[in-house]
């Protein structure tokens, strides 16, 4: 067990990689009532085409990682939620593009809950009957998203940005794609991606690290995992250009929605370079289009945006993109003016003073995020899978220069990598 102290943040992290390859991290947070733990596999919706070690290449139906996440909660003896509820925990799980995370939070019975978490994720139980039953439930989840305009405008944008990359696939899949899922396919994905060497356990809260490490080591030793070679994930070559520059869909909404996206080229980046890329993009957008920018104020004064207008970036080793937008009375005018504004900025560059303000703002927001144990566990895991480190955010920001952001501006803002997605009121 290694101990790392972060002086400026006054946080201590305990780390160990177990014999079976499982990475375990514990961050004690004294004064907090609850403990939050996540058990995460590096397996998400984009991993639909892969080559397990010593096996044949497989392509699986869209939505299977998410389906597997649902099915992990059901066991021969019943539902895992029952057990967590008996122990006063609130449990959940989520599937993203790149990860599947199982989690609980509790203020009591923390060690029992932790054992339950690790055990249920390492004990798959799928039958034809339970798999079929789940299709009804997930079918309703898919329908719920179909009626959600924010979700539709976002996935519409990804579909425009990407020609081949599986990030464009809806995380839950479609009613048709999940129809092809059966228990054998689930077991196959499970064996490929749920080996401890592909997983990370993060525990944060009022806990004693020694006790956790002892418990987890005993637990894992009992299960006798044999070693497993890393799976090879197969991704198509994605062109620089977007798939289509614009799309529109009609839904029953009161106010149209418009998102503008830019696909970034990140091929081969990981580690701290990837973290730096993400932070540069966040600072870039804060300067160009954050609430104190001239562009934001101008759009607001024209009534083209309201406080739903925002930006975000997603940066992963296999794909990265920026998304800007929100509710607007006139999607076409908004898209045109945002484009004009950012291309104007491209010509003018970013000034050093603005960079300083945005950097300090980002530092303040990061401190605020550290109040949240959920943020710490989820973001730490995300960065760890990218071979970087959440606790390097402040040092990387401090080392960044305004020239770095100018370079990011020049490389990121490219017309052929930009697309627009619109949801309009039906009728």
């Amino acid at each position, binding site marked *: 067990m290694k101990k790392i102290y972060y002086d400026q943040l006054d946080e201590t992290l305990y780390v160990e990689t177990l014999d079976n390859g499982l990475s375990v991290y514990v961050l004690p947070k004294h004064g907090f009532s*609850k403990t939050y733990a996540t058990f995460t596999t590096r397996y998400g919706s984009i991993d639909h085409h892969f080559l397990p070690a010593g096996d044949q290449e497989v392509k699986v139906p869209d939505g299977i990682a998410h389906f597997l996440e649902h099915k992990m909660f059901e066991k021969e003896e019943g539902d895992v939620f029952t057990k967590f509820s008996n122990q*006063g*925990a609130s449990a959940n799980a989520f599937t993203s593009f790149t990860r599947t995370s199982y989690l609980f939070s509790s203020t009591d019975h923390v060690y029992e809950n932790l054992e339950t978490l690790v055990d249920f994720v390492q004990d798959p139980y799928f039958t034809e009957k339970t798999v079929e039953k789940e299709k009804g439930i997930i079918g309703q989840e898919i329908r*719920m998203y179909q009626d959600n305009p924010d979700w539709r405008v976002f996935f519409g944008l990804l579909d425009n940005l990407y020609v081949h990359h599986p990030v464009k696939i809806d995380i839950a899949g479609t009613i048709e794609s999940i129809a092809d899922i059966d228990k054998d396919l689930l077991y196959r994905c499970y064996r490929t991606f749920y080996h401890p060497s592909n997983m990370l356990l993060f525990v944060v809260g009022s806990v004693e690290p020694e006790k956790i490490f002892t418990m987890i080591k005993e637990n894992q030793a009992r299960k006798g995992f044999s070693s497993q070679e890393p799976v090879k994930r197969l991704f198509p070559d994605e062109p620089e250009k977007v798939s289509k520059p614009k799309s529109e869909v009609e839904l029953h909404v009161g106010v149209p929605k418009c998102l503008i996206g830019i696909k970034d080229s990140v091929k081969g980046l990981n580690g701290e370079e990837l973290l730096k890329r993400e932070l540069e993009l966040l600072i870039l957008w804060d300067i160009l289009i954050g609430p104190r920018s001239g562009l934001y104020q101008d759009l607001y004064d024209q009534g083209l945006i309201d406080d739903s207008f925002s930006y975000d970036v997603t940066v992963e080793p296999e794909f990265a993109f920026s998304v800007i937008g929100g509710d607007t009375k006139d999607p076409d005018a908004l898209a045109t003016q945002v484009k004009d504004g950012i291309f104007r900025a491209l010509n003018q560059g970013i000034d050093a003073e603005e960079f300083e303000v945005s950097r300090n703002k980002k530092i303040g927001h990061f401190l*605020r995020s550290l109040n949240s144990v959920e943020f710490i566990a989820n973001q730490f895991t995300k960065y760890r899978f990218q071979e970087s480190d959440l606790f390097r955010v402040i040092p990387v920001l401090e080392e960044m220069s305004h020239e770095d952001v100018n370079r990011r501006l020049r490389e990121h803002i490219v017309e052929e990598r930009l697309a627009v997605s619109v949801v309009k009121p039906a009728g």
Partner: protein
Amino acid sequence: MTSLTFVDDTVRQMSVHVLKANKFKTNTIVLQIHQDLREQTVTKTALLSLVLKRATEKYPTSQKLREHLDRLYGAVFDTDVIKKGERQILQLYLEVANERYLSDPAPLLAEGIQFLGEVIARPLTEGNGFFSRHVETEKETLKRKLESLVDDKIRYAAQRVTESMCHDEPYRFHPYGRKEDIDSITPEDLYEFYLHLVRTHPIDVYVVGDVDPEQVKTEIEKRIPLERKSVVNLNRTVILHPVSQAKEVIERMQVTQGKLNIGCRTQLSYADDEYVHLLMYNGILGGFPHSKLFINVREKASLAYYASSRLESHKGLLIIMSGIEIPNYQKAVDIMKEQMKMMRDGQISEQELKQTRATLSNQLREMMDHPRTMIDLHFNGIISGRHRTLEELLDEINRTRIEDIQRVSEKVAIDTIYFLRNHEQEGSSS
């Protein structure tokens, strides 16, 4: 974690509540202004919340205001309007980094309080009104916010079932007000309304962080220069509302999933002795993944992805919510009614009781880990006039027996069944 309590005080006829907690890396300040939820003022209040956050005398453009916040290490500032029972609350919220974690020793807490003081006491004016151009823009913003309420169908259905149930009570109003009342509001009306509101209505100021309560009090006295007059008394929310017969409301729209919401009256609220029994009732019925609704609507019948219930504790409503395949409407309603009947018949297992005690207690204890939820818990006491500490709540939960829950279930009655569905005819699939 039992030692965390608010220190209460009064400054300029405002109630000040400070909680010292060194586990947070930021300081949070929330200012809440109470008033009765009423047709005449609901829309003005919503508009006021938008106008106040645009600019102040000192920061006369939004750009200057936002720049100032960004320079305070990205202080997060927002305003909002919510309802708690039949009260509308105008909230100002600011969260700022604790300078202890910065290399720069800027006095961020004092700056944060100063800023909220500028917003609430020195807004940007023009003649006898608010700055008119901002009022005009924000009228449009508010209209758009109201128009966009239909976009999120889950929330829309929750609002519609409440409206249908409370059609002749103030609780029907959305805290953002009514679109048809926006146009006629002038910058002068709004300013006059603002002066009256901040001078005469109850205000609670909360500060949570690694702070010194005495210093906070001094800073508030100095930096929130509101001229306060005597504080008005507000109405009590009407809770008792007998139900003779359940209504059914069907609304049609272009949707793929049906939203089924069942609104119930409980005849009980936060102030009542039996409130915790009602919390337990809701927990067993639909608050958790071990609850009857989740198990029977989702896991057993495979009808829904979400099926749950929640309380509107200050109005005494319980709302069941789910998203279902449209032709399954009757089946889902029957299962839900069946679960309520089981509650009345006392068909509650020891396991359900134990699980709900444990998860509800956990939920409450977890509130102590977020500044906003700590404030909410205390503010519930202010709103209802009945303070319960965390320990008291936990103790009452542990003492609640199946008979107590059964007794409460006698009072819970379906008022309105609301269904949002597609345009197709009955029987045809979507």
